[in-house]
């Protein structure tokens, strides 16, 4: 929601039936109090969501409509529950680590700094290539081994997401900004559908545990996300100073 009381969709479309006036009122309350606010929705026919989160961001308020359709972790199921995944996302937006980017912000952020390297992601061999490229750049910085290894792990998770959920093809670009390394992983897939993150494992046992994005958010300094029907772009930042 922008400062002029308008509501626009950054991810997906604004669904019919969403009570916009009520959303604006909650968003204004969050902006006034400068606090992250979250509401559980008990009546399924009141909202098209199970949970609504309002995150003040300067002069606007991010609204996360979490629709989990009652999904819970099944007994003995090793995958994360959808509720857990979505609540984790909401919390990361609230604390400023995850930024949901609009198209203008995406264009600015993906051009920031100086390009070091760019290559295509097109099969699982790209995973090792991506890890090696980031490792080589970070070896020249002052960051410690554990942080370097965690960063490499995050890049592997992002490239894996492209291969599994982003149409199987994309690109990775390394950019040097003043105080950080930025890795941009982009694809032209159908966009992130968080419901897919709890898909059953494939015949090969490649379980999609829903943990990849959690690792990225836990271990990196900042993450930017733009996703829609024409693809997904992730900006993965590691401070190097």
């Amino acid at each position, binding site marked *: 929601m922008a400062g002029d009381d308008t509501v626009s969709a950054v991810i997906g479309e604004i669904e019919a039936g969403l009570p916009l006036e009520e959303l604006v009122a909650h968003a204004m309350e969050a902006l006034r109090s400068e606090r992250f606010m979250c509401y559980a929705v008990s009546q399924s026919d009141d909202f098209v969501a199970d949970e609504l989160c309002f995150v003040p961001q300067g002069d606007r308020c991010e609204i996360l409509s979490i629709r989990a359709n009652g999904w819970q972790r099944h007994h003995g199921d090793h995958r994360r529950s959808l509720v857990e995944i979505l609540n984790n996302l909401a919390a990361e937006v609230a604390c400023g680590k995850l930024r949901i980017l609009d198209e203008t912000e995406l264009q600015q952020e993906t051009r920031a700094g100086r390009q070091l390297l760019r290559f295509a992601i097109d099969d699982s061999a790209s995973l*090792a290539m991506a890890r090696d490229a980031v490792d080589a750049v970070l070896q020249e910085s002052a960051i410690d081994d554990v942080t370097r290894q965690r960063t490499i792990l995050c890049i592997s998770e992002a490239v894996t997401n492209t291969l599994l959920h982003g149409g199987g093809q994309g690109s990775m670009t390394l950019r040097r900004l003043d105080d950080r390394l930025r890795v941009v992983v982009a694809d032209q897939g159908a966009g992130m559908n968080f419901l897919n993150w709890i898909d059953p*494992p494939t015949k090969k*046992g490649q379980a999609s545990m829903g943990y990849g994005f959690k690792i990225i958010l836990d271990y990196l300094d900042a993450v930017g996300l733009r996703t829609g029907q024409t693809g997904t772009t992730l900006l993965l930042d590691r401070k190097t100073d």
Partner: protein
Amino acid sequence: MLQTTIAPGPAPTVFLAGEMDLDCADTLREAVAEAARGAQTVVLDFADVKFIDSSGTGIFVRLSLDMKSQGTPLVARNLSPAVKGVFDMLRVRELVGDEVFPD
């Protein structure tokens, strides 16, 4: 890339080396299937695994649960620091059971 070496015996051991990511499923499953013939349990030795991500972890978890249900449970030994860090973060012990990690 993941490499495997099998040491036969009453409790055969599959020594794992290299990287465990999206690509390791076939290699790991084939090695464990070969080691499991006639065995009551299969030991996986992670000492030389230099890298593992959530896909590699998911493949291990799935395989561990499958082998347990088939009556030939896996045992994981000598977790390298890289593996231990990711397993701890993803709470793998809770997912597959304490008995998989006798160390």
